[in-house]
Each structure stands twice: as structure tokens, then as C-alpha cells.
């Protein structure tokens, strides 16, 4: 699909705004957009957002035979993809000039600066080395792809863990993550690209140009630097003549920006490490901001909560008669379960549960009269180990762990999540759960 053309008035407006030192998003000339780094559930997966530009980085590894002339060095491979998802102008299957340029720049920035210790990726010299592959996908294009891609690449590499290997004589053993903790790559330094856009033959300079600014700029200067202020790559494009002190000024700005970004990256990595260690929630789903589309006018809808309990009881009383079979989860593999058909009831003794009921002095009609009924309607699903939900209720029985997620208004269908081994979980536990759940409502 064709790129949306830039209209004359946009071009004129942008150039005038640059002259007045204003930018479309209210930034100053030397301001960087907000950088957001979020990590996926797996190691070596991250999304970097630079304003509205988003890049997904994914690192993978493979054991391969090394190159002939470099028998003891691992192989690093970078690949940036520009898909039509990022912008309609990017066509699939074609390598436009821009993509080739960006890929080349990325390689120069990350591989040629020797930020990864490739010697440590060697397993058996001349026979087996690790090939580290960094895939970068542009998810949304709002200018300055190279900065976002370089940040994503280095963050993904820092986050990545490769499987541990051991060599005993000729024998190479590859350990699964369960057997031995995966090991991180050894990273010497973190080169980060910073782009500068020049307007009117270098009179005006903008840091981190947005998509529309990129379209009207005269020239672009990309400087890659690490936090020790060592320049890794410098590239000028667009054919503008820059003065010596312009380049020097740019490199000074780069130093400041790189220090800020490096600090941010380390903070993000540290955060993610801590969350994983504590067993909290992580992954992309947790880091998506909630954007609500608000309506401008909304009438208040009064909700009558007077007879809610009575109504709920009524619904329970009217509930469907029990079906003939009892659902019993069959564990196929961790995280999955099947609810079988026509299997025998293994929910423990009815009498026992009655007694239990009386002991607790509960006068819950629905529970006692329709005790058998309830069992069948409860659907058991093997729980995932989600820990920090406020609706979690743990039962007192020791061998099982019961998690109730999303309690519904009607008590008819109580979705409970039980552990895998819970084959003959007692009725009593369930009744207790029900009571507790009521209390929470």
C-alpha cells in the first residue's frame, strides 16, 4: 500500500515550527521521547517503546558449527523486520533501502563494537559454538526506528539466558532449564544509538525525530555510544555538510542521553529480575497500559442492591437439576485438564459433609438440600499458579490449594480452580469455600 503523502501545509507548518523551536508533541529540541521497556514471559523477549514507535526484540540461540576462519568464536546475527503492521507503506517480502541501511547500522553498532563476548559462546573449538540470533520486529512506526531497535536489541541480549552446557572429554551435555539455571550472555558494554535530525542545512537540530519530522528533515546523524562515552558508530546521511563543533555538540548530547537510557535499561532489568524472583506477575500482558475510551455523557444508572441476596438464593433454588455424571478433571499435562464424562463421583461422602455442615451451624438451605446438586455443577479446572489475586481463597485442607477466580454474581456456577492432584477432594472443603465466598460478597 502506498504511504500517506505529506501535504504541503504539514511540511510548511513543521518547518516553521522547527524555526520557532517548537515540536509537534511539545518537546524541546534536545528532548528524547519517553522510553518504556517491558519484558515478555520468556527470557530474551522485550518490547521497547519510544513514544509511539514500538520494537519487539526476541533473542534465540542454537548450537552450530563455527565459521572456518573463526573456530573459537560464537556467531551473532541481527535481523530487523519492517512489517506492514508498523506502517502501511512497508511491504512484506521486500527489502527496501531503508531496511538494508538500518540492518547494516545495527550490525555495526552491536557486532562490530564487540559488546558481546563471542569467545564465551564457544562450546567445543571448531566443532560447536552458540549462534545468537536477535530478531527485531517493528510493531509501530512513529519515527526514529534505529534508536528504538538498538535499545531493543541490547535489552533483549541483556535479558537473554542461554541453556547451560558442560563438556566432558568429547561429550557435550546440554541442560534443560529445570536441570540447571540458564546462563546470561557476557556483555562488555551497551552501545545505544541516538539520532539527530538537521533542518535547513544544519541550522536547526532535533534529537529523536518523530515520523513527520523525519520526512521533512534535510539530514540525519546517528551516533552510537556506550555509557563510558566511547563512540561505537557514527553515521551521517542525507548529504549535509556538518561543522566540526556541530558533531562535537551532538556527541556531547549523545553522552547525556546514553547515560540516561542505560540507567533506565538497568532499572528495568533489575525490576524484572526482582519480580521473577518473587514470583510476581510478569510478561507483556501485565505491562499493557489501560486506555479507556470515555464517553462524554453518561446517565447514572441506579442499581438496586436491596434484595440481592434473596434473589441469589432464589436463583440457586431454581437451578437446573443435577445431571447424571460428575465432572472429574483428568490431568493430561501440567497446566491442562480434561473434564471426563460419566465417571464416578469421587467427591467424598455425602453424610460426612452433612455432618460437617451441622457442625458449622450453617443454615444455608441451598447447600444442604441441594448438596449433591452443587457438586455436579461445579466445574473444576486445574489452577495455574497465580498468586496475587485478591479473590484468592485458600482452603484449610493441606494437600490442596483452591483458587477462586472471578466470583460470579449467581452462586449457581462456582468456577473453582483446584490443583492437579485433587481427585478426591472432600465435600467439606467445598462447603467451606462457598461460605467464605459469600462473606466476601
Amino acid at each position, binding site marked *: 500500500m502506498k504511504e500517506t*503523502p505529506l501535504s504541503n501545509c504539514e*511540511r510548511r*507548518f513543521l518547518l516553521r515550527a522547527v524555526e520557532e523551536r517548537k515540536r509537534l508533541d511539545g518537546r524541546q529540541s534536545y528532548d528524547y521521547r519517553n522510553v518504556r521497556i517491558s519484558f515478555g514471559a520468556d527470557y530474551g523477549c522485550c518490547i521497547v517503546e519510544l513514544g509511539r514507535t514500538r520494537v519487539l526484540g526476541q533473542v534465540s540461540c542454537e548450537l552450530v558449527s563455527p565459521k572456518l576462519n573463526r573456530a573459537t568464536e560464537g556467531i551473532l546475527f541481527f535481523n530487523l523486520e519492517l512489517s506492514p503492521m508498523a506502517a502501511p507503506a512497508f511491504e512484506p517480502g521486500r527489502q527496501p533501502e531503508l531496511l538494508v541501511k538500518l540492518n547494516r547500522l545495527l550490525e555495526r553498532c552491536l557486532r562490530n563494537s564487540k559488546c558481546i563476548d563471542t569467545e564465551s559462546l564457544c562450546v567445543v573449538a571448531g566443532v560447536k559454538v552458540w549462534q545468537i540470533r536477535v530478531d527485531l520486529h517493528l510493531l509501530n512506526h512513529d519515527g526514529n526506528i534505529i534508536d528504538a531497535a538498538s535499545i531493543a536489541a541490547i535489552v533483549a541480549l541483556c535479558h537473554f539466558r542461554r541453556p547451560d552446557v558442560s563438556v566432558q572429554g568429547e561429550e557435550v551435555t546440554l541442560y534443560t532449564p529445570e536441570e540447571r539455571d540458564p546462563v546470561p550472555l557476557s556483555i562488555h558494554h551497551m552501545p545505544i544509538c541516538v539520532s539527530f535530525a538537521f533542518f535547513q542545512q544544519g541550522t536547526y537540530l532535533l534529537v529523536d525525530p518523530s515520523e513527520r519530522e523525519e520526512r521533512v528533515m534535510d539530514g540525519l546523524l546517528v551516533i552510537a555510544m556506550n555509557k563510558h562515552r566511547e563512540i561505537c558508530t557514527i553515521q551521517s546521511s542525507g548529504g549535509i555538510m556538518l561543522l566540526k563543533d556541530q558533531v562535537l555538540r551532538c556527541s556531547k548530547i549523545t553522552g547525556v542521553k546514553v547515560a540516561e537510557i542505560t540507567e533506565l535499561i538497568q532499572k528495568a532489568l533489575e525490576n524484572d529480575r526482582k519480580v521473577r524472583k518473587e514470583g510476581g506477575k510478569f510478561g507483556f500482558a501485565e505491562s499493557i497500559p489501560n486506555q479507556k475510551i470515555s464517553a462524554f455523557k453518561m446517565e447514572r444508572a441506579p442499581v438496586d442492591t436491596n434484595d440481592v441476596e434473596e434473589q441469589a438464593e432464589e436463583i440457586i433454588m431454581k437451578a437446573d437439576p443435577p445431571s447424571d455424571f460428575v465432572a472429574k478433571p483428568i490431568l493430561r499435562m501440567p497446566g491442562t485438564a480434561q473434564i471426563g464424562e460419566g465417571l464416578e463421583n469421587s467427591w467424598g461422602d455425602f453424610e460426612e459433609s452433612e455432618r460437617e455442615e451441622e457442625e458449622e451451624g450453617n443454615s444455608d438451605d441451598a447447600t444442604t438440600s441441594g448438596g449433591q446438586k452443587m457438586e455436579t455443577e461445579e466445574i473444576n479446572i486445574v489452577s495455574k499458579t497465580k498468586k496475587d489475586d485478591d479473590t484468592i481463597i485458600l482452603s484449610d485442607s493441606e494437600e490442596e490449594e483452591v483458587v477462586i477466580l472471578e466470583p460470579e454474581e449467581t452462586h449457581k456456577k462456582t468456577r473453582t480452580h483446584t490443583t492437579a492432584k485433587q481427585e478426591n477432594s472432600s465435600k467439606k472443603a467445598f462447603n467451606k469455600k462457598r461460605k467464605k465466598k459469600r462473606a466476601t460478597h
Partner: protein
Amino acid sequence: MTHTPPVVCAFCARGPCCARALGSGKLAGLREGLTLTMAAAETGALPVEERVGQVVLPGDVLLLPSHPEADGERLWLGPGAALPGRLVCGPGLRCCGAGLLVTKCGLLRHRQPGGAGGGSGGAYWVDSQQKRYVPVKGDHVIGIVTLKAGDIFKVDVGGSEQASLSYLAFEGATKRNRPNVQVGDLIYGQFVVANKDMEPEMVCIDSSGRANGMGVIGHEGLLFKVSLGLIRKLLAPNCEIIQELGQLYPFEIVFGMNGRIWVKAKTIQQTLIVANILEACEHMTAEQRTQAFAKLSER
């Protein structure tokens, strides 16, 4: 004899219903809509009137009301718009058999036909949140001229295909007196042809040959893009945002139904403020917006 009203696949309905539409999108309504949708999936289809203002999902089948009083094909042959039973099937709906098939998710909208109240006529469409514009007949849009070819201009409107615009379709334009339009200029016009099989066609005159505000937009000002949902909100009658914004300082603004907005204020700074506030409005509650405006008017 019963039959369903004829369905024409053209959409030219936009009006006060848009404003009403926004108010009813409350949570309760959404949830109710979803449960109803599930019910429909089990039992088949629901009458279309019952679903107006509720959430519909792709694949839902809506039954059109049948009305026994209309008899025979004779009525159908007359001029369409005058018929009470004529139904317009708008974006997000497709005519299938006796009913309507929903093709995108959103809130179902309905507008009664103008003039004599024909019970089952009017227009049905689905209001959804999206960014990609699909040309609709009668929509006023902002386009960018990309090509001058012979006696037509090619205009980019953000759709899948460029629209064509005849140079005669400007006010006062004749074969000798051509309008001054350059490549890259902005055009505010409306669609006269927009369907899935043909190239969309724009004009910059109304049916009486007057410009009526359409034509080439000035060479200054800023063009930016917002989502289609926000544009519909802003174009709704008595939109609060526009009223509040208008009290700040004078500016010119053009809304295109294709999500493009052109703004021009006295200074660059003021133009940028208007553009940014409009972009930000989409995800603000009414209180947040009032605060933002209060902050702006202090300056």
C-alpha cells in the same frame, strides 16, 4: 403475505444519533449486550430492533422486521427514498438472506427515516472504534492531492484506494476556468460514489452546485490524524469539547470523517495546543478534560 423490506447497500446516515450513541455505551449495556449475543448464538437470530444500542459481534445475525401491510413488488419499483420500508444497511452490516449479518464489532445504531415515519425503514449501522477509514457515500473528508492526471485529480483519503476528483467538481469551475489545485494540497470534499467495487469519487460542490464550505483548504495550518471514533464524537451536535475549545481563543478547524483534522490558529503555539488537546481528549474523562481546559485558560 409477509416480506422483509429491501436493503440497499449504501450508507448516508449520520446525525443526532451519533451523540445519543455515545451516552448509551455504559458498562451495564455492554455486558447485557454480550450475554444477549451469546444467547443469539445459541438460539439463532434476534430481531434487529431489540439490539439497537447494544454490542454486536461479527457473525451475529439480525432479523429484519417483516411487515404485512406492504404488498408486492410494485412498491419497490418506485423512487427508493420515498418508500417507508426502505432500509439502509450501513458500515459493519451486510445483507444476507432475510436478515443482516454483522461484520464488525461495536454498538448497533439505528436512525429513523426522515419525513413520514415508515416503521421499519431507516438506517442501521455499527459504530466501532477503528483507525482505518472506509469511504462511505456522503461523508465529508479531508484528502491530499497526490496526482494531477488529465481532467481528474487523485486524492488520498486514507482508504484502501485513492479517490478521484474531477476538476469540474468545484464551485464555478468550467472547462476554461480550472481550479488552482497543486499536488500536496488539502481538499475538503464529499463522496458521491463509494462502494466496494468501484473507485471512490469525490466532489467539492453540493447538489445545487455551491461550494458550501468545501474546496481547497488554505496553505497554512496543521493536519493531523485521530481515530474515527473520536471524529464522530467531535462531530456530534453540541459536542462539549468543541464548545469548550472555542472559548479559549479563535481558530479555524476542519474535521474529515476519515479521521483527519486540520487546525489553524493565530500562532504555531496555539495551533499545536488545539491539536494536542484534541488528540488527548479521546482517553480523558469529563473531569480530566475540564481540568486540562482550566489549566489552558489560565495561561
